């Protein structure tokens, strides 16, 4: 039955504008970073074109592959997490927005399959976006002719981006639970924005590795110097958050009132 549910969840995305919108938003990110790199490298021409204010300071920034990967991780870590929130809110919350949840939940299908299938669709959607945009980012970096490229640097940079994307996904089931609990798309997005702010605040207390929403900021260097690898405790926290979010979503669909 899971195969049938998964197939229908993919069918529901047919002609959905959300898939293209998320690709467009994520695809702009490497272009934005590339523009920034070009401004750093060519401040005179950028100023002539009006892209750089006369008082703007770019001291300490370098247009290199190292910096490019750092910024990619930063943008993917924060922007990506918000984008994934949108995807999850769309998949789970829209069933309530379109009032189709009542049709779905009274079908002869165990309700946990819907939660699992929607998370699986989100995983495929998210992976496809990350792969497409990473390929785009590498191509943009090569076209830009940034110095300092090496296979090791690229492998480490890509691994960092993928780790940030994976962490974002591990936080997704909590967003799914908020969507089914609130029966809509707005609350999960608001929740993620609040958690992102709390994650940054909490990250500065020295307990960043233990608060799920501080772990990506910790990894990408938003709340402290970037860490090469996360402490084991963070992986335990993330795994626990994933399991708790998935369980809460399933229990909500199964036992709570699902009126619209």
């Amino acid at each position, binding site marked *: 039955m899971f195969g*049938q549910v998964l*197939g229908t969840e993919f069918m529901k995305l*047919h*002609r959905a504008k959300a898939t293209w919108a998320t690709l467009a938003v994520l695809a702009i990110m490497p272009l934005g970073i590339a523009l920034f790199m070009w401004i750093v490298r060519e401040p005179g021409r950028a100023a002539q074109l009006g892209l750089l204010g006369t008082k703007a300071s770019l001291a300490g920034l370098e247009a290199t592959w190292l910096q490019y990967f750092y910024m990619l991780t930063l943008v993917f870590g924060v922007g990506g997490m918000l984008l994934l929130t949108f995807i999850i809110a769309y998949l789970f919350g829209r069933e309530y927005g379109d009032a*189709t949840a*009542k049709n779905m*939940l*009274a079908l002869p*299908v165990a309700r946990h399959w819907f939660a699992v299938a929607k998370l699986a669709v989100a995983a495929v959607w998210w992976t496809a976006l990350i792969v497409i945009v990473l390929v785009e980012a590498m191509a943009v970096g090569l076209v830009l002719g940034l110095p300092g490229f090496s296979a090791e640097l690229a492998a480490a940079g890509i691994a960092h981006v993928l780790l940030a994307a994976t962490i974002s996904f591990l936080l997704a089931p909590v967003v799914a639970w908020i969507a089914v609990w609130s029966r809509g798309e707005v609350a999960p997005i608001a929740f993620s924005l609040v958690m992102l702010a709390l994650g940054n605040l909490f990250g500065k207390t020295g307990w960043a590795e233990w608060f799920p929403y501080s772990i990506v900021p910790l990894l990408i260097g938003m709340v402290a110097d970037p860490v090469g690898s996360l402490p084991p405790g963070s992986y335990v926290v993330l795994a626990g958050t994933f399991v708790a979010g998935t369980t809460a979503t399933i229990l909500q669909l199964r036992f709570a009132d699902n009126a619209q």
Partner: protein
Amino acid sequence: MPDTAVSTRALVKRYRDVTAVDSLNLDVRRGEIYGFLGRNGAGKTTTIRMMLGLIRPSSGEVTVLGKRIIPGETAVFARVGFLVETATAYPNLTVRENLDIQRRLTGSPPRSVADSITLLRLDPYADRRAGQLSLGNKQRLALARALLHSPELLVLDEPANGLDPAGIVEIRELLRSLADNRGATVFMSSHILAEVAHLADRIGIVHDGRLIEESSRDELAAKARAFATDAYTPEEREQALLTLDLERYFLARTGDARGADGRRTGASSEGGAV
């Protein structure tokens, strides 16, 4: 096999200090059309939601086709078709695609999609997105979805919503044929007296969450006539007859369902997936 398709026992649903359904005892016999009549807010939709396991009773129980309904236990719904409140569908998908989702999740054969499209006369709209359909055609799509897997029990919340007079007659005849020819049980809620009076074998009247009256259509009609004999003015009687005449005239002119002589002029509502 029990001879009741749906039964509720001391069913209660409370939302904080509001009691939406209050000690409801109901028995719907197999093969009958049961009209669940009540004003807006009487508790009809809340009762239907509990029948479908969408919300939990505060106390009491619901049994559908011999199975006690427990939220999350969904196997019995393979034998139940339903339409709850407004007719909804995935707006970015076509009529055919929406029905294909229903087919896959109910394990129905591939031809059931085409059959249900034909049955509800949705052929001209089969490849149109659900979001672009008129209210009446959305209602037809919802009914097609409910009928697609040939259910033993149909639970329909205001099935005539959004349908024009010809469509109402057509759906009425379809439901009657399902009960008479296929033995399907139909539980339909409505706040429209005429709709229930035309179709139901038995009628339950719910008010403030309580079942205040339950009788066969003929018994209820007799009570209503006795009650109303002196209550109508000649003008009111004239108005009621005019409404009936206008409906018949409209149907004859639009040639969709029933001619002025009372005979059907359109395609049969029989056959197909159900």
